[in-house]
């Protein structure tokens, strides 16, 4: 059973993850993961049908860093920001210093002209490594409620 202190630190960690993306500190995004972590954005539809391919997939920090470099230097898109709103985290099984957790999220996107709307809502299905000094994501599956993406998805969720 996780102690209260660990729960608190994981809660702070998950909030800091969202804030880093919202605050355009995207270069720090890979640091929230273990070196060989898996990050995937998929949809409820794919997950329920058992289909392996979603919307975005990174295996390890290297691929995450490539994503950030690409969006900083190669990809073209209209400027916009995210605001992550997280629900409470529910913890699952813990084994070998890794705990399962689910957190619902709501991401509001604001375009440069002020247009603001729900961009994504869904759940984070995480496996969080709590064996070290600070928590790290060993796996994050971002499951979007909708199979539909408005315009494009360039920043991670």
């Amino acid at each position, binding site marked *: 059973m996780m102690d209260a202190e660990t729960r608190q630190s994981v809660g702070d960690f998950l909030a800091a993850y969202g804030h880093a993306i919202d605050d355009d500190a995207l270069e720090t995004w890979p640091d929230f993961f273990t070196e060989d972590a898996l990050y995937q954005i998929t949809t409820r539809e794919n997950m329920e049908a058992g289909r*392996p391919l979603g*919307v975005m997939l*990174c295996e390890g920090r*290297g*691929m995450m*860093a490539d994503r950030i470099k690409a969006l900083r230097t190669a*990809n*073209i*898109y209209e400027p916009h920001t995210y605001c992550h709103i997280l629900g409470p985290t529910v913890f699952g099984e813990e084994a070998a210093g890794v705990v399962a957790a689910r957190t619902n999220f709501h991401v509001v996107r604001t375009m440069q002209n002020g247009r603001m709307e729900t961009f994504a809502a869904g759940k984070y299905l995480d496996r969080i490594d709590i064996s070290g000094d600070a928590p790290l994501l060993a796996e994050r599956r971002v499951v979007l409620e909708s199979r539909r993406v408005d315009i*494009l998805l360039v920043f991670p969720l």
Partner: protein
Amino acid sequence: MALRTAEDLIEPFHWPDSGVSRVPFRLISDPEIYALEQERIFKGPVWNYLCLEIEISEPGDFKTTTVGEIPVVAVRDENGDIHCLVNRCAHKGALVCLQESGNAKALTCVYHAWTYGLDGRLKGVAFRNGIQGKGGMPDDFDVADHRLQPLKVTTFCGLVFATFSDETPPIEDFFGPQMSRFLKRNFGKKLKLLGTQSQVIHNNWKLYAENVRDSYHATLLHTFYTTFKVNRLDMDGGIILADDKWHHISYAKRHTLTEDEEYAQAKVHSAQYNSELQGPQLLGAWDEFDDGVTHSIQTLFPNIAIQFTLNSLAVRFFAPRGVNETELFWNFLGYEDDDEAQTRMRVMQGNLTGAAGLVALEDGCINEFVQRGTHGHPDRQAFVEMGGREAESSENSRATEAAIRGFWDGYKRIMGFQ
């Protein structure tokens, strides 16, 4: 008055004298022209993509979609035959199939329980004889007089198509020999659906139809490969237009000299690309075919495109959702006989395209920029002269807008624009 021909337009439309190297912006913003397209194109002599055969593989399987803006359902009956029916009850017009996909023994409208067979024939009507001798349908009511409106259906290489028109030619004639051959190359084996997503793009459907035919923009807008100094082995390429110019293939080939013996033996990693990627496993790939073509995109009029980007095979279906909105459906595919490593690579290469595609996510916004940029100037025109003013195949170069001119050439004809 229903819009049936170009003469029915309240404001007449004439194509500029210079031909398909000029494209008036009115074509992407006028609701009247959009309405005429529904009649002339989507209800006209074309094969409309419905779904993959594997999505409705069992008797009773159905999938709803749209032909133009018309709701339809593709359904497989007890005998294994596929039907396409307008998803509209013959009684009051309600949607019959509410789920996007599923399996059913019969199709029943929830409103008044009119029940149809999987072939769309009306089987029964609730309270047909009234209740306790009162009410009910008139004596001359005959279930045979009512049914779900059928479309003609055909399948080709695992893809299901339908048409409203009796004038639509057989599917291989519609595509022509070159297009058909390339489809057989890519869809020659049983398919496996690896993942789906859709993307709402805020532009007229024809801007996306142009975009997937636009080989001029590829390296200019999409700079992922150059940013990461991906060693492109696939420099040569060309454009093939179908005889009627509606459909096209754009392809890139790897160089023939770079084939190392070592690569040839370890087939799976033969096309590993050198790059500055920190996660080079993104571009783990193998040579799928021995014709040297490593990237291709094939368009089929009116509204699908098939990509084979390295090993990432996908059917893109772009459905009109109004004059300035389009829903782009992505179906990422593999083959039934892929091994685990091949499936993993296809899944990984799913990162290259789609709503979050590293190489091509720009296409989600670029067409909207055209839609917005052209707002308020319907009489101004796009200038489309890269590679000449004609719409002809270009076997040696992709620095051309030939396929875009080809699209407009076919469009002009089917719309009856002079």
